[in-house]
């Protein structure tokens, strides 16, 4: 397997606040990796750091072996990295159709339509709301629209940040059922989530994030492999 995404000794933060402390993480092509940890411990910052959407970052971030430290987010998006952020980051005044289409911004209209049809099969509820402004959708529908927009890009690397956040348990479970069945077409997935149970059984590897560091790695079958993240010396937590 080839590494598609790799971060080494990554530190990042906002203003004077250092959130990440020397993170090392390598993700292989086609792999599904879950980032698990409590709120405020760096999962979101790690994903945003990869996209260059933090105040500062230090270390190495490589995509296909090439540094992307100086690559702006929009170029990464065009280059096949899709961040589906926490909340949703939709365009509230634009219709659901426009929001979805924006996910395939760099493609032609024919390709865009094919991708939209595929996304609408995954989220039939959105098909009923195509002409509606995204800002008027319910929380669950907004999350579907956000995921749909990300999937429209047919990216090589998906970075999905807590899709269940703020959703009722039933809706979150439904959303995860869709995520589990997703055909990423060889794409790689890095998924941040607080609730580890939602990831077990279908994710290849669970990476535990605590205090801005990687403190443990668990294979997807739920059995800890006993490894600890290099440099922090901590045993697996939780």
């Amino acid at each position, binding site marked *: 397997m080839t590494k598609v995404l790799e971060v080494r000794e990554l530190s990042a933060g906002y203003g004077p606040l250092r959130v990440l402390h020397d993170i090392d993480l390598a993700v292989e092509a086609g792999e599904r990796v879950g980032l698990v940890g409590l709120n405020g411990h760096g999962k979101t910052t790690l994903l945003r750091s990869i996209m260059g*959407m933090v105040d500062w970052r230090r270390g190495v971030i490589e995509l296909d072996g090439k540094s992307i430290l100086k690559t702006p987010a929009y*170029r990464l998006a065009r280059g096949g990295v899709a961040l589906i952020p926490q909340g949703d980051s*939709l*365009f509230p005044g634009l219709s659901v159709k426009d929001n979805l289409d*924006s996910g395939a*911004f760099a493609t032609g209209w024919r390709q865009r339509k094919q991708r939209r049809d595929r996304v609408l099969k995954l989220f039939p509820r959105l098909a009923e709301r195509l002409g509606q402004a995204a800002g008027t959708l319910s929380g669950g529908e907004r999350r579907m629209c956000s995921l749909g927009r990300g999937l429209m890009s047919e990216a090589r690397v998906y970075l999905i940040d807590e899709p269940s956040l703020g959703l009722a348990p039933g809706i979150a479970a439904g959303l995860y059922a869709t995520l589990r069945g997703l055909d990423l077409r060889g794409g790689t997935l890095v998924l941040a989530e607080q609730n580890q149970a939602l990831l077990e059984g279908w994710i290849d590897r669970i990476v535990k994030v605590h205090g801005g560091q990687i403190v443990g790695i668990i294979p997807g079958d739920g059995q800890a492999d006993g490894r600890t993240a290099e440099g922090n010396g901590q045993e697996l937590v939780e």
Partner: protein
Amino acid sequence: MTDVVTTINLAAIYGLIGVGISLTWAGLGFLNLAHGVTFAAAGYGAWWAQENINGHPSVIFLGGIITGAVAGAIICASVFLPLDGKINWPFRSMVASLGLAIIGVNVYLLVFGPSRKSIDFLFGTTKFKVGDTTITADKSGAVISATVVMILLVIGLMKSRIGLGVRALTQNPEGAALVGIGRKQAAFAILMTSGALVGFAAVLLSQTFYPEPNIGYLPLVKGLIVALLGGLGSVLGTVIAALLVAGTEAVTIHYLDASWVLLTQFALIAIVLLVRPRGVAGVLEASRA
């Protein structure tokens, strides 16, 4: 009836000026105070095309539109891009655009001198009557062509890929970056379109506002009033605001005097923004809710 004709005529042109300011602010967070010198540049461009290429109206219009778009690109490259993202950049870029406006006026003085330039009637000199009111070809031509351009703008925003990018950027800049919309390219698209629109307006107004170095100041003020009143970023809001501003102007001139126009227009802004801080767009949103 004359007031109605004047209102529609002015509204069509103010709309063209205001929508550029509105989209630039909403899409880029940049208050472009060099929009007025773009207006003047376009007037000179139209005059230059008339004198040096051909006096055909299409050449004159193209001269104005192209000069406006080029001026927009210059503003983007010299003011917006160097400051974008730097500390306190919204304020710094606004001040820099004001500086560029002052430089522009002085360059026009040096190159063209202080005298006004004359541009031919673009829609002929025929007149026709509706009831007791005489309507000139110039006014009707301005209204029809400005309306067509606004409709084309809306179609472009709604149907084209660039239009989707601009609308996305006005809604959520971070979300736009996440789907691959580059701020730099969008900035050029927005500022060049704004420049082309104000260039078109400059040609339409060339019988009232003859090209001269300081000619851009009043259109800039009108454009700002319309953009603020319309609710920054809303094309429909801008069109309605342009009608309100032009109507206020026509009624003020009819019942009071032209010197009262800016006073009544600013009073209108104050009242609308006190009730609806998002301007006309806020009223539209409330009516849809």
